[in-house]
């Protein structure tokens, strides 16, 4: 019954999306107040219906209802409850349902909360949101029904890929999806603005919190995904430039650029056409990402189910929505009044450079990710990987970091070279000092990119907090704190990347019981292997006695080699010790014939900074979002009070 109720809710949501699109179209055309008023409630109910459908799917997964085909194919009754719950989106149909649920809820949230935007533009926005939703409801109902029944119902399910049986599954896909799909709001805003030709500071101020919201979740989702891959794949890598990873990075790059160009539009009424285009591009990157992941056209370490037919469906949706939006852009944006132009040496000048560099990096990631397909069309098998991305996007990203350090210290409108250099004195000194220090003191040779990364991280850290210098900290606006924390977060992440790349120590050994192995500052002694049992797995678990330095306290790490029966899979579970200055990462391998066991040990100094920085960036985004919302509220209240007086 639950499954049928879910399906009914999905159909209802689809019908409401159709109604929403129709009403919005009529309302924008005729401008009748009754029609305008009807769109908001429909959008809200549509979101609720999608949520009910998602709830129904989660319910059948939690109940292990094997008569639902999707549950039978992807779940197993012996699985821990958390993975039954999260397993609802650990498959194609479920994850697409989560996708449209978030889409519906985002539309509902816009209808519920957005009061600043011009009413006609808002209704056009909700119309755009409904149009996207309609396509994806059709995709679910006609090509990916999650509620289909299995007849006869199997006695038990096939189980979930053990690599996914991790708390990461409960957190990573939903956050990433909220980010992906949250960008649809920016897209619909852009469509709404193009339809009503209303692109200006008010539009930018209305859009900004939505973009920030999506961007915060994208940041969290990517950070969480990186950490998940890091501990789960068992080789200590935190970024592989894998197509699926790139698919999440591309919307983030576009959203980051959008976030900054929106600021220019809101403050200085410039970059009008550019901001509208970025809003379209940002969501198109979300859709391209979804397409890449779901179609499986690129070989990825993330083994998702591959289905060309579904890929074709998403591709068609992509062509219709993004192609349509870009065509609308090309036709309409010429009639939008040109925005202001700027002095080169100014805050907005810095933001233009920021947008330029972010867009170039985005272009490189896009081209690099798709190039194997291009080469295949020319009859060549090709791999594009870390050497290309690090070598091309890396240096540009470092220049971007330098611009990022200088940007917030520039004045709006116009600045003076002499004064700028004076303000940048301290950050430049920090950069040079850190670079020289690392170069001289490092125990290992430092690569050019890492050296520049460490030096610039120091400079950026100093420059990030500079805007708070000599200010009354209690009166500094919240969004300023947001920027400071987010930029500082980038410095922290960059330092973590460069430091762990440079100073990681690797020890691959065939360990004998009782023989200590040195890795970094640690002495690791293998004490043997024991069998252990988990909820739905059995494992061999190594006991590693770890001591830091000569007289540190001894503690134990227990990496496992796990065996899952449903489906039959072996995984290695790393055991990680986190200290203030890094992580000790241990993995148990296979035994050899001579009674020794393979151990993989890494000392990764400062590696935790990578994800700590990611979290800081997200927190900074949240502070900024809150700051902007509060300021807008205050401005509205003041305007009302002024009108009363």
């Amino acid at each position, binding site marked *: 019954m639950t499954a049928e109720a879910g399906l009914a809710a999905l159909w209802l949501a689809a019908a409401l999306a159709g109604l929403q699109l129709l009403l919005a179209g009529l309302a924008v055309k005729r401008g009748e107040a009754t029609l305008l008023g009807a769109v908001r409630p429909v959008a809200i109910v549509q979101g609720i219906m999608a949520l009910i459908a998602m709830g129904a799917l989660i319910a059948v997964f939690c109940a292990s209802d094997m008569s639902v085909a999707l549950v039978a194919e992807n779940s197993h009754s012996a699985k821990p409850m958390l993975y039954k719950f999260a397993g609802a989106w650990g498959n194609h149909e479920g994850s697409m349902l989560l996708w449209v649920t978030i889409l519906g809820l985002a539309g509902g949230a816009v209808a519920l909360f957005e009061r600043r935007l011009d009413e006609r533009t808002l209704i056009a926005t909700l119309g755009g949101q409904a149009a996207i939703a309609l396509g994806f409801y059709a995709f679910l109902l006609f090509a990916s029904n999650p509620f289909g029944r299995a007849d006869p119902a199997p006695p038990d399910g096939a189980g979930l*890929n*053990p*690599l996914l049986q991790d708390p990461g599954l409960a957190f990573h896909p939903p956050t990433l999806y909220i980010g992906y799909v949250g960008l649809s709001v920016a897209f619909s805003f852009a469509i709404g603005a193009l339809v009503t030709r209303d692109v200006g500071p008010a539009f930018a101020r209305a859009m900004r919190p939505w973009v920030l919201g999506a961007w915060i979740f994208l940041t969290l989702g990517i950070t969480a995904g990186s950490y998940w891959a890091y501990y789960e*794949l*068992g080789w200590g*890598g935190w970024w*592989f430039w*894998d197509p699926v990873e790139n698919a999440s990075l591309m919307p983030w790059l576009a959203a980051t650029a959008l976030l900054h160009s929106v600021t220019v539009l809101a403050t200085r009424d*410039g*970059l009008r056409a*550019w901001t509208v285009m970025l809003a379209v591009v940002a969501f198109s990157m979300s859709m391209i990402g979804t397409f890449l992941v779901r179609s499986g056209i690129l*070989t*990825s*370490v*993330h*083994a998702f189910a591959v289905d060309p037919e579904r890929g074709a469906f998403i591709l068609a949706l992509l062509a219709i929505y993004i192609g349509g939006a870009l065509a609308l852009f090309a036709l309409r944006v010429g009639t939008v009044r040109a925005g202001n*132009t*700027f*002095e*080169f040496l100014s805050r907005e*000048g810095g933001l*233009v*450079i920021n*947008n*330029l*560099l972010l*867009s*170039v990096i985005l272009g*490189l990631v896009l*081209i*690099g990710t798709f*190039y194997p397909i291009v*080469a295949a069309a*020319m009859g*060549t*098998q*090709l*791999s*594009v*990987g*870390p*050497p*290309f991305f690090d070598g*091309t996007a890396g240096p*540009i990203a470092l220049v971007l970091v330098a611009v990022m350090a200088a940007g917030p210290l520039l004045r709006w409108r116009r600045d003076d070279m002499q004064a700028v250099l004076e303000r940048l004195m301290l950050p430049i000194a920090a950069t040079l000092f850190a670079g020289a220090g690392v170069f001289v003191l490092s125990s290992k040779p430092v690569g050019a990119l890492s050296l520049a990364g460490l030096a610039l991280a120091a400079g950026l850290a100093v420059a990030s907090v500079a805007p708070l210098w000599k200010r009354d900290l209690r009166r500094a606006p919240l969004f300023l704190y947001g920027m400071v924390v987010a930029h500082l977060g980038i410095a922290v992440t960059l330092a973590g990347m460069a430091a762990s790349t440079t100073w990681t120590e*690797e020890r*691959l050994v*065939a360990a004998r019981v009782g023989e200590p192995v040195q890795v970094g500052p640690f002495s690791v002694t293998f004490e043997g292997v024991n069998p252990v049992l988990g909820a739905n797995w059995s494992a061999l678990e190594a006991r590693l006695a770890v001591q830091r330095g000569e007289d540190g306290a001894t503690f134990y790490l227990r990496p496992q080699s796990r065996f899952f029966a449903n489906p*039959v*899979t*072996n*995984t*290695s579970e790393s055991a990680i010790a986190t200290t203030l200055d890094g992580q000790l990462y241990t993995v148990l*391998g*296979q*035994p*050899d*014939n001579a009674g020794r066991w*393979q151990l*993989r040990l890494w000392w990764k100094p400062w590696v935790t900074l990578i994800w700590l920085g990611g979290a800081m960036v997200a927190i900074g985004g949240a502070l900024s979002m809150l700051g902007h919302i509060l300021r807008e509220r205050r401005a509205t209240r003041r305007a009302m009070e002024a009108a009363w007086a």
Partner: protein
Amino acid sequence: MRRAALLALLLCAAPAAADSGLPPAALAYTQLPDAAQEAKAKALMETVRCVVCQGQSIADSDADMAGDMRAMIRQRIAAGETPAQIRKWLIARYGDYITYDPPLSAVTLPLWLAPLVLLGLGAWIARASFRRRRRTNE
């Protein structure tokens, strides 16, 4: 597509399921004693694509064949070959596919020119946002 390798592709997390029961090659999971040589070998391994688990480099793969490739690379480095020589040897066997660092050719030229083209195009577009230099001095 019908081969053991494909099975391994689906079960990359499960080395035991599709691979031999033989213990890994000597240098597959152990390092070279010379740190400088090991660093060179490691850097090369990170750019070599695993032909079994096609989504990973051999430095990150548990497949037997990736282990054998690592062992071979370490041995050759220890014997004094340069990473460039070994890379060339691998490309001669498996084609450009084997390296994550696409060799420059007519096919990859647009790829490697992309950074310059994008920077140029971007700078040209950005120029429109900046005020024209004033003709009269203020």
